[in-house]
């Protein structure tokens, strides 16, 4: 009997499916890194660096994919399929062409459909290997990074506002409630050097002893640094954006209900002012009769007036 609904038969399959199921409070997003038919040496290095930065929750595809054109209407189906298969909601797609050299498309998905895209070009790239520093300072994998955004263009330019949001989403890591202060060791410094360009650096943090209980911060450049030039971007559709920004509804606070340890649950009931003096008396028969008689008389008079002109 082959039914249309496939339900997992083993516990392992069931657990895997539950991992992919939507959760009330979401934590980390997985990233998918892939490239198109043509890449350059710089782009390969960029993609592998991003993969190393996000090693725990990223998937890197090594083969080339030739039918991905995210900015065209039909060309995103492959991306959506990969997102569904690997359960990744962040996509980093690299491609290189004469018109758009060292092109990087950062995309987000909602429910495995493309939510928004930002296309950036990578310039002045320096890879992680080219930096020489004391290895003890190297930031640990999976640590939550600091973010520093500098420049008024992040507020004034639409594209940079969008890029800021996407970079935050890409590198932020897990959303945690409790943070171990001893474990902060990296920072992403993004400077808007023009209305379309962001100079991004990745540095390690060094906490130095200072007089007070707050340590003195020192930045040591460790990671890749590159200039991101925003080429194109696609903002999310309004309806989709509204749906994606919905948060889990918290249980509504019940008003006028208190819990007393002795008496139990107590409630307050507020009665509106009844205004007894203004109530009409229902049993004034005489008055009613008279009213009815008068109303009937008035109605007949008005009817006679209507009939007569005819």
């Amino acid at each position, binding site marked *: *009997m*082959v039914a*249309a*609904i*496939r*339900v997992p038969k083993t516990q392992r399959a069931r657990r895997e499916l539950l991992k992919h*199921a*939507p*959760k*009330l409070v979401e934590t980390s*997003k997985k990233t998918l890194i892939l490239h198109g038919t043509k890449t350059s040496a710089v782009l390969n290095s960029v993609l592998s660096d991003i993969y190393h930065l996000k090693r725990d929750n990223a998937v890197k595809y090594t083969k080339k994919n030739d039918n991905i054109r995210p900015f065209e209407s*039909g060309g995103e*189906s492959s991306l959506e*399929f990969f997102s*569904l298969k690997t359960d990744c*909601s962040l996509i980093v797609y690299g491609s290189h062409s004469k018109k758009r050299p060292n092109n990087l498309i950062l995309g*987000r998905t*909602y*429910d*495995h459909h493309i939510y928004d895209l930002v296309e950036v070009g990578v310039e002045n790239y320096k890879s992680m290997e080219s930096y020489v520093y004391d290895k003890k300072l190297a930031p640990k994998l999976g640590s*939550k*990074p*600091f*973010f*520093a955004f*500098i*420049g*008024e263009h*992040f*507020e004034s330019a639409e594209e940079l506002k969008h890029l800021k*949001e996407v970079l*935050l*989403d890409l590198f*932020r890591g897990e*959303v*945690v*409630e*409790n*943070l*171990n*202060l*001893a474990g902060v060791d990296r*920072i992403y*410094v993004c*400077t*808007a*050097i*023009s209305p379309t360009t962001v*100079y991004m*650096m990745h*540095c390690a943090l060094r906490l130095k002893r200072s007089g007070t209980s*707050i*340590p003195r*911060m020192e930045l040591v450049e460790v990671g890749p*640094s590159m200039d991101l030039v925003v080429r194109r971007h696609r903002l999310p559709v309004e309806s989709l954006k509204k*749906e*994606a*920004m*919905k*948060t889990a509804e918290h249980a509504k606070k019940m008003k006028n209900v208190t819990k007393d340890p002795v008496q139990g649950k107590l409630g307050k009931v507020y009665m509106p002012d009844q205004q007894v003096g203004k109530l009409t008396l229902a049993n004034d028969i005489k008055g009613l009769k008279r009213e009815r008689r008068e109303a009937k008389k008035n109605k007949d008079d008005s009817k006679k007036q209507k009939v007569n002109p005819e």
Partner: protein
Amino acid sequence: MAEGPAATTIAASSYEVDLGNLMAYDPSHHIAAASREELRQECLRKGTELAQALADALFALPPNEDRDGPIVHLSLPTVRLPREKHLPKPKPPTKWELFAKVKGITKRKKNKREWDEQTQSWKRTYGYDRVNDDKDIPIIEAKSTDEPGVDPFAQRRDEKKKRVEKQEKNRLENLKKAAKIGALPRLLSFTSKCCFPPPLYYECLFVSGRNLAELQLSNIFCMQSIQLAAKALPIIGTKADLPKKSRKEDLESVVGMASSATASGGKFDEKLPDEKPPKHPGKHRKFLPVAEGKGMGSLEKQQNDKILNSLLARNSDEPLDVGKASSRIQPLT
């Protein structure tokens, strides 16, 4: 955004600090430096300032001392980022749950083992070697209502089978209801509309078993792809009569056939977003090149030879083809 003035450093600049995301933003204008190296130094300096502002804000929070280090409780991030999946929808109550609610039936815990009177031992409540197994009944006493030729054991077996099938049907119905409102976790093969071109893709759902013949499954998972309702199995008929599941190649050839209906052979037909271009674009005849060489080229000669040979062979009076015959000679032994 929480305004956190950096009191320790420059009082004039105010940074926007988002502790939930560990983010600091300096909206003041950043002067462009002359060279790359200067720019880098300037960015590092500014970055240090912002990191210091963040550290000030973080270390100001009351820490819980843990063996790994001081742990602080972060507030919710002010910059809200979109979710990656929709909010989970609660599963609708099953048919049994609704009934139980109406009747006031509550769940009771069953023990894993029960005392079996027949074998005087503790047996499982379910599974292998269970307590009240149907198979273990040795004798069924005949009732006055029983007909003479009926086998009560077979009857019991059939009834059990029917009960199991009914339960399976109800389970599938419940799952279908849950899937309709989107409460089930998304399954790979049936949900993504991006796998198959929408109008050409239709699900052929095989529903076998006479009890499930009434089930009409349509539009369960696929949001936008058009689905034909499953054709119920005929009451009579074999597996060969079932409509075969169309392969991708068949569907593509159908598209090719349909395109021949237009005067331009489907060249200007509006293509769907996922449709691939046709495999044999227009060329169905092979023409020889116009200029091949001096006089009759070898290709033209070959073509003419082929035609002549086939004509002559058809019209020749010789019934025997010596060449063919000689190849078929077998030594008589």
